[in-house]
C-alpha cells in the first residue's frame, strides 16, 4: 500500500512541477498592434531602433514602469516597447499572410486567432452595402508624427514625458 501511495504522490508532484515551471520559463511575447517601434529608451520619444509588426515575437529582458526591454527575435535587435503593444499569447499568422503595413493592406492581414477579421468585415460589407467605410479609411490615414506631437506639446507648454501611462 505504501509503495502505491508513494507512486501516486511522486507522479502528481512531478506533473505539478513540470506544469508550473513550463509557462514561467517562456518570457516570449507577441506584438499585438499592427505596427510599433522599438525605442532606445523606455518612452515614446526615444530614438527608434527598429520597427516591429503584428505577430512578431520578442524575448522580454527587462522592465521599467509600463515599458519592457525586448529582443526582437526575427532580427535580434534590442529596444524598449510599451506593454500595450505586447500580448503574452502567441499570435500566429496563417500561411499566405501578406504585408501588415498601413490601413490599405489591412484586408490582407490574416489572423490565426480567427474571430472577427478581414473576412468578416468583407462579408459584413457584402450584406450591408449601404454602409460606406470611406470616412473610417480616411481617418485612419491621419497620423501625427512623433516630431509633430513634440512640436505641438512644446508650443503649448505641455508635459510630454512619453512614458505611456502607468
Amino acid at each position, binding site marked *: 500500500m505504501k509503495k502505491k501511495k508513494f507512486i501516486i504522490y511522486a507522479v502528481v508532484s512531478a506533473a505539478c512541477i513540470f506544469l508550473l515551471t513550463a509557462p514561467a520559463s517562456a518570457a516570449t511575447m507577441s506584438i499585438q498592434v499592427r505596427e510599433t517601434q522599438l525605442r532606445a529608451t523606455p518612452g515614446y520619444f526615444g530614438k527608434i531602433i527598429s520597427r516591429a509588426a503584428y505577430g512578431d515575437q520578442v524575448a522580454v529582458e527587462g522592465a521599467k514602469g509600463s515599458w519592457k526591454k525586448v529582443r526582437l527575435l526575427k532580427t535580434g535587435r534590442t529596444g524598449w516597447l510599451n506593454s500595450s503593444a505586447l500580448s503574452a499569447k502567441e499570435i500566429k499568422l496563417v500561411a499566405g499572410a501578406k504585408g501588415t503595413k498601413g490601413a490599405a493592406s489591412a484586408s490582407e492581414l490574416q489572423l490565426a486567432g480567427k474571430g*472577427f477579421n478581414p*473576412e468578416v468585415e468583407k462579408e459584413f460589407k457584402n450584406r450591408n452595402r449601404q454602409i460606406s467605410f470611406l470616412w*473610417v479609411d480616411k481617418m485612419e490615414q491621419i497620423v501625427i508624427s512623433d516630431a509633430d506631437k513634440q512640436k505641438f506639446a512644446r508650443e503649448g507648454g505641455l508635459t510630454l514625458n512619453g512614458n505611456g501611462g502607468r
Partner: protein
Amino acid sequence: MNKIINKKTGFILYPVILLTAISMMLLQGCEVVKTAAKVGEEAGILTSQQAAGIEKTATAVERSQEEITPSEEYYIGRTVGAVITNKYKVYQVDRATRYINELGQTIAVHSDLPETFGGYHFLILDTDEINAFAAPGGLIFISRGLLRCCNNEDAAAAVLAHEIGHVQHRHGLDAIQKSRITSAVTTGLLEAGKNLTYAQVAELTTIFEGSIRDITSTLINNGYSRALERQADQAAVVILQRCGYNPQGLVDMLRVMDTRLKPGALDFAKTHPSPATRIASIQESYGAFSPVNQGLQRQVRFKRALAGI
C-alpha cells in the same frame, strides 16, 4: 478508493491537486480541470465544497479567455465608425481635423492604453447635437455642438480625453451581449490555425452584426451606465494631469454644456449623466482645481483651428 487514500494522504494530495488544476487550467483549458475536480470529489480526496471551488476558478478563467483581441477590437471599431459616419455628416475643415488629431493623438500617449491595434484617430461630426462617440480601438468622433462647449484648449483636451478613457477601459466591448462573444470565441477556437469555411464566416458575420448593433445602440441611444461615465471622467482627469492640462477644463466644459443641453434631445441629454452630476462626482474624487490659465499660444492655436466651429 476511500479506503486506499486515507485522511492524511488526502491532506497532502489536496494542495497537489489544486496546483495541478491551476497548471492544467493554464495549459489545457477548463474542461479538464472541471473533470479533475469531479474525479477528486468522487475519489473522496476533495470534499464537494473544495471541488466546487476549483470548478468556480476554472469558470472564471474560461470567462477571461473570452477576451476580444486588439485586432478583433479594431475590426469591430471600424464598423462601428462606419455606422456613425453614415448616420452623421463629417465636418470637412482640414485645419480643424488636423488640430483635434494633434491634440488627441498627443494626449493619447499619456493614457493607460497608448497603443491600440490601429491607433487613435479623430473626426468632427457636422451636427449641432452635443455628442461624441468612441468606437472600440480608438476611432473617436466629436460633434461640432460639443466642441462649441469648449472655451479653450484645456476643455477640448478634456472632451477627447474622456473619449480616450472609454477606449482605454474597453467600454464599447462591454456593451456586447456576453452570449455573442461566447459563440464567436467557440467558433474561433475550434478553427484556430485553419482557414474558415464560408459557412463559418457567415456565422461569424451574423455574430459580428449583432455585436455592432449592441455597441451602436448603446453609444447612440441608451448610453453607458453612470459608473462607466464616471470611470471615463476619471481617466480624463488623469490623462489631462499627465499632459500638463488643467482638469478644470473638463469642469468648465461641463458647465457650458449644462446651459446648452436641451431636455429630451437625443444626444448627451439622453445618453450621459447630467453635467451637474458629473461635476459633483469629479469634485468628490479630486476636490476643486485651480482656474484654467493657459498660455497665449494654446489659446491662439485653439481659436485659429476651431474658428468656424
